[in-house]
């Protein structure tokens, strides 16, 4: 478990990190919490000649409410997000997703920016950023751009992030009183999601669904919206029966579903229907 040799650079600030990234670009990997990258280095699945450690860039760690909504710094740890009263108050599903990641040690070290940049198809955060319609803010030599969650994930471990860009923060729009929840059926060995669903549901005073967003992880090469189920729920009166019926269509949009040691396609589709129903039910509870 010894990585190939690499040159280690410790960024002193955001601008220093970007300068290092501009210099080494394609030959570099950004090291944040290290909980995805280091295992890959040790298994020699990745052998970048340069590592740029951004762990010391304190300015990227804040969680704050701004006019852009709830803004979470890229270096906020999973534990920070899970424990944040700000997050819990408005985006419970996000806090629950953070709390569901790995184990305590992983949550203390891993970061939201690192997790999103890694784009693991079974990671928990991607479902949450998609369900909350978040924007991933990236900074590079050409400036700053905000990438919609729906555009960010492009496939297995592949995102819209360019090699010379760094995620600086993630912006979660305010939820206008919508309830949310993250429900996960965990793979017992890795702790990753066999299926994870983040649900955001807003009911009006007559218990009619005014807004609903459902996103799943673990089922495809990237997080996916459960649009068929959303359409069945949207604008309709909320009831257990309606939810039950809508959840039966949770997988209807998915042509193909991942298979692995822990779930063949039919079982994973079934789990998706169950987990989506449970997530949505808890979102309004």
């Amino acid at each position, binding site marked *: 478990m010894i990585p190939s040799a690499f040159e280690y650079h410790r960024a002193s600030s955001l601008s220093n990190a970007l300068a290092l990234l501009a210099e080494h670009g394609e030959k570099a990997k950004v090291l944040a919490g290290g909980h995805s990258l280091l295992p890959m280095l040790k298994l020699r699945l990745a052998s970048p000649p340069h590592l740029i450690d951004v762990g010391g860039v304190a300015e990227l760690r804040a969680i704050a409410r701004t006019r852009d909504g709830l803004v979470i710094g890229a270096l906020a740890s999973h534990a920070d997000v899970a424990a944040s009263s700000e997050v819990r108050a408005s985006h419970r599903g996000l806090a629950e997703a953070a709390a569901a990641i790995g184990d305590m040690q992983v949550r203390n070290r891993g970061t939201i920016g690192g997790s999103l940049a890694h784009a693991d198809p079974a990671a928990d955060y991607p479902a949450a950023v998609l369900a909350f319609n978040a924007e991933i803010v990236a900074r590079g030599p050409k400036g700053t751009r905000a990438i919609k969650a729906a555009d960010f994930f492009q496939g297995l471990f592949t995102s819209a992030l360019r090699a010379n860009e760094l995620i600086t923060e993630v912006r979660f729009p305010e939820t206008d009183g919508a309830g949310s929840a993250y429900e996960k059926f965990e793979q*017992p*060995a890795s702790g990753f999601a066999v299926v994870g669903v983040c649900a955001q549901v807003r009911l009006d005073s007559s218990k009619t669904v005014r807004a609903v967003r459902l996103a799943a992880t673990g089922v495809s090469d990237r997080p996916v919206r459960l649009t068929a189920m959303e359409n069945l729920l949207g604008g309709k009166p909320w009831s257990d029966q309606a939810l039950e019926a809508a959840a039966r269509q949770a997988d209807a949009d998915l042509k193909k579903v991942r298979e692995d040691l822990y779930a063949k396609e039919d*079982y994973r589709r079934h789990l998706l229907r169950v987990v989506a129903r449970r997530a949505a039910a808890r979102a309004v509870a």
Partner: protein
Amino acid sequence: MSPVTVPKFIGARIKRKEDPRLITGRATYTDDIVLPRMAYVKIVRSTEAHAKLQTVNVAAAKLRPGVIAVITGEDVKDRIAPLPVAHKIADLKVPPHYALARGEVHHVGEAIVAVIAETAAQATDAAEHVVVDYAPLPVVTDVEKAAGGAPFVHADLGTNVAFAFPLKAGDPDAQLARAPVRLKQRIMNQRLIPVAIEPRCVVADYDAGYQKLTLTSTTQIPHLLRLLLGAVLSLPEHKIRVVAPEVGGGFGSKLNFYPEEVLLAHLSQRLGRPLKWTETRTEGFLSTIHGRDQLADVEIGADQDGRLLALKVRLWQDLGAYHQLLTPVIPTLTVLMLPGCYTVKDIEVHLEGVFTNKTPTDAYRGAGRPEATFIIERAMDLIADATGKDPAEVRRINFPPANAFPFVTATGLAYDSGNYQGSLDKLIANAGYAALRKEQVAKRAKGELMGIGLTTYVEVCGLGPSAAMPAGGWEACELEVRRSGKIVVKTGSSPHGQGEETTFAQIAADGFGLTPDDVEVVHGDTDAVAEGIGTFGSRNQAVGGAALARCVETVRTKARRIAAHLLEASVDDIVFADGKLFPKGVPAKAKTFMDIVNVAYLADQLPQEIEPGLSAVHFFEPTNFTFPFGAHLAVVDVDQETGKVTLRRYVAVDDCGKIINPMIVEGQLHGGIAQGVAQALFEEAIYDANGQLVTGELMDYAVPKATFLPSWELDHTVTASPVNVLGAKGVGEAGTIASASAIMNAVVDALKPFGVKHMDMPAKSERVWRAMQGGAR
């Protein structure tokens, strides 16, 4: 042992002496050792399950920075003999098992090349430049197919069946013919990976001046390793020292003789450098032995009361590609333990050991007995289901009575002592069995799935009488009283988590009226401890502890002789209690143990016939195995929607004979039960048809986490073993042997509304969910 005194420390719940150094990071494991001029070894392993090695090109690797040597199987062919297998099986087929492959590889992970470099990183880098050209050969991974014929793992053998081991008692066919209840079931004990927290590691240091090899290894058997190294390398045994420093778990996986041990020993001598090799986790998954992997076809005959009349079992043990040290021996324990704790007289077993293109199997916690327990305990529940009887009653009706011990089984073992009703009664009471059954009825009415599973087990340990062991079954101990009155115990049992620095100190302390802190227990170094067998088969207390008890008694007797001389009394009249020696009835004249120690070493008051000094050496040879037993109960809840099984309660009553330290016994049970839970619900080594290990890392191979487990509810009964003076039976494996079947019986019980009669392990969510699809409900 003569009446010592009231035991003060034996039976006491005292904290482990070894723990402070372990939990504060001050312990030395093999990988912590750094020697001057040390170089590092990286092994290049086969990526193919079965292939001819066309070429092994090491030229590029030799040119990499820091490389000292790159060694192939051809380079060592006249220097290292094939690895040994210890067994007493007639006509065993033994294919040559080389430390580095020659010409052909037979499983993924087989060692092909050793790269030696100045640093571990350089060795790892250079290893990537070794080019092996494989010509693939047909692969066989299915044990039943392999038993049936070609393709052969070892073409020269002309068969994959390494041995057959048949056993028959009574007339099972006649019993089956007249049995009103006849059942058949195929039962699989899946392949498991041991996953000790500490991976394997070897440090070899050949001193050319002394012509002496020091090999430090993560081993459970330093003395056997010394013997085998000498044999395989043609080195004189008295010029070999083997050290097992702190060993971080073994579970049988370090009860072995591995290619890397002999390879590093040889290469250190050859290169004139100390060498270290440390396994990576992924590497360990492929090259350290696996456990279980046994298929059984079971035929059961019973009467309407649930009495087991006949048992016929065909067993196929997947050996993997080679015999490791005890590979073929393990499933023979399954055969012998198949009757479990029941009186069945008519039994037939036919075991075949079969080669496949997989990592070799060998001893893994329980080693053959969890397999037997799983078969017989599933059989009990199948009988209960078929007869409509309560599983507890079916077990009860098949027990031998408590006064039937020693009880001779259908397979010829003599169970030393037991009271199976006693442990089951206590379990039923502790668990609130009747209330659980009521709760289950109520839950079922609401459509909820709850299962209750029982196991009543007996296992064989205290291994064992030498007549039944491939390399001696005794254990050796030395006890030295130092001149200051402190005690040093040197034991051949080499622990790797069993806590015998504490329990052995408790035993010795009580012998002399001392405290455990006055006793140092030395182990795991063949230069410090002359002889030994090692730690496996739950034998530490029952054999190693018994050897110590003999030493205590010998030294006590000598102390009494000295006291008799000083007090001018007959030795038979000298009482030795609480550290004082006095003539019977005259405690005022007492000499302290320290007085005696002083006389023994100053020697100026000793008579001619008493030698100076105070020490003893004993080899304890047990007359029989010991047979711990108990009753376990699991309660599971099954999520009908997802198939997820939750282990809600686990209640156990174990009888490991007399207990030296209840806290250590509980610790052994905690880990042991967890490893059975692992087999029942989580772990499974899966190979694909090409012989690739699909569950090759901890991201895929599900070792349960602490949060997956409930708090254990433990209790015990105490039935002393007559086999050793301590009355101890052993407890290291009991939890694992019992728990997998208890949990699976609970899972099957939970799924009863769906008509499920049996399920293979692990009961992972998908498997449970599928069992419910198209079920009876």
